[in-house]
């Protein structure tokens, strides 16, 4: 019995809890991708870099607040700085839309052109971020680090294995759940949200039903921007902030959105957790987990790790390829909200 508990604690500590947090971060990113895809109808490649840009402002805000001696009790100060980052990013996205995308919308350009345009925005944003905060790693997590510490856990339970629950992990999951709940409320219950769904479903009809396309585009960017800054800040709190890492997150974001079904918000969330758990599960060394369950003489020699951690993006890529071959529409058959 105790062996099983120990194994479960190992699993929770190294796979379940981190996977849940990481999955929430990916889900938030994928939600933005899916929203932009189904309403503005293109794959938004600037997502990761704009996320980095927005998080940079949250970090500045955090520093500013720390300098002023303002803190958020046991919670990270960054949460207080979120509105600043979100406001800046919404302004930034609307400016980008005005300067770049709107033109292509007017001339009814093909989606590929939009993708290329978003690559351009990505490079510009990347440069701005480097100018602003530099390419290096930043940590801005303050507040209470651990809700449950490894040692405390061992003392309470008397188990050999310990379990750590970090504040940032709980905050990530809670904030993500709140954001998702609000998003679904908005899309399904409010007239504006329904207008967005209508626009994504049938643009011509939406226009002829009196729905203002500019407003729909505006709201889409605002929501996507909010999701980006949330995802970026939560990821930064949970792991660390580095612009290049954020750019690399583009792959799991798109994988999650595609696995769930591009255009389906539920799909983006489910896809986010699938991708996260697959990455963690396949790159985790299971030896310690099984050492509690199997007799010593049955234990194989290796680490029982399918792939080294460096290959975690290969896992994502693999999932993406499999889904695109066997079920290109994704789990929830995407396309419209």
């Amino acid at each position: 019995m105790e062996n099983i508990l120990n194994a479960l604690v190992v699993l929770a500590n190294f796979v379940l809890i981190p996977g849940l947090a990481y999955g929430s971060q990916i889900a938030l990113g994928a939600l933005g991708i899916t929203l932009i895809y189904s309403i503005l109808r293109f794959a938004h490649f600037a997502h990761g870099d704009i996320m980095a840009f927005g998080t940079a402002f949250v970090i500045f805000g955090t520093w500013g607040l720390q300098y002023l001696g303002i803190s958020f009790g046991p919670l990270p100060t960054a949460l207080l700085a979120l509105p600043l980052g979100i406001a800046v990013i919404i302004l930034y996205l609307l400016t980008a839309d005005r300067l770049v995308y709107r033109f292509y919308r007017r001339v009814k350009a093909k989606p590929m052109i939009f993708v290329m345009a978003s690559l351009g925005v990505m490079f510009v944003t990347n440069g701005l971020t480097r100018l602003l905060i530099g390419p290096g790693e930043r940590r801005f997590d303050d507040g209470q680090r651990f809700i449950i510490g490894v040692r405390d856990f061992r003392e309470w339970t008397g188990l050999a294995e310990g379990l750590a629950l970090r504040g940032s992990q709980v905050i990530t999951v809670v904030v993500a759940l709140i954001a998702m709940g609000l998003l679904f409320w908005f899309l399904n219950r409010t007239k504006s949200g329904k207008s967005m769904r209508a626009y994504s479903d049938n643009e011509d009809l939406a226009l002829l039903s009196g729905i203002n396309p500019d407003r729909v585009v505006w709201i889409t960017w605002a929501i996507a921007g909010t999701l980006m800054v949330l995802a970026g800040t939560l990821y930064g709190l949970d792991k660390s902030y580095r612009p290049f890492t954020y750019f690399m997150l583009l792959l799991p974001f798109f994988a999650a959105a595609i696995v769930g079904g591009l255009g389906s918000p539920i799909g983006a969330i489910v896809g986010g957790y699938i991708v996260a758990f697959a990455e963690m599960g396949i790159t985790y060394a299971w030896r310690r987990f099984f050492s509690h369950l199997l007799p010593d003489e049955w234990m194989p020699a290796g680490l029982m790790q399918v792939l080294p951690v460096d290959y975690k993006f290969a896992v994502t890529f693999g999932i993406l390829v499999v889904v695109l071959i066997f079920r290109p529409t994704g789990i929830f058959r995407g396309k419209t909200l």
Partner: protein
Amino acid sequence: MIRVEDLHKHFGGFHAVDGASLEIAEGSITGLIGPNGAGKTTLFNVIAGVLPPTSGKVFMAGEDITGLAPHELFAKGLLRTFQIAHEFHSMTVRENLMMVPPRQSGEDLWSAWFQRKRVRLEEEEIRRRADDVLKFLTIDHIADQKAGQISGGQKKLLELGRTMMTDAKVVFLDEVGAGVNRTLLNTIADAIVRLNQERGYTFVVIEHDMDFIGRICNPVICMAEGKVLAEGTLDEIKANEQVIEAYLGTGLKNKVVKEVGHV
């Protein structure tokens, strides 16, 4: 009500609408007929702001509305239906109708969140109106079905229903009757006449069914090859040499018999 002046719409070298001029009298139910490919739908698309004109002007109640976006025209009371029925396929039939009424207070987040009661009352009012419209069109039994799953004829009725959800001034119907059975066609004809009389809608109706046109439309405008050929009562149109030629000229002799009737 609506005046179209020398309107051209070219697709590459092809002149789909080629210098059409016409006037729609306020309070009328005007029929628009013409052989397939005459440019009727394209004319609607230009008037309703779906396509920009190559040249020419459109006026509504004396105001130049050329090139306004569809949602701006909607706000002015100009509505249209699609020849190929459109619908929000992931929403129910009732929700499809409920999308239409403009300026709902649930539109801004503030009232959606803080004034739920008001928003709910308003929504119930709109829902009632949607149900009335569905009953009127005899499709109230499919109110909760996903609009993507209903039949082609039912989609046509939904198209018409959409125009009944708001106070329109002028409504352009593009073959609302096509693919709908006789009895229902009569219902539609009655609905159009009633909306015209009771609510003062002006209608422009594209139809290939001459009985339908003859029953409710006066005047009738005939288009061919992007131009307006003739205008008058249906009988006058039927007797018009140019019109007969236009229908014959397309090589569809049997169409003349079927559509224009014994000439």
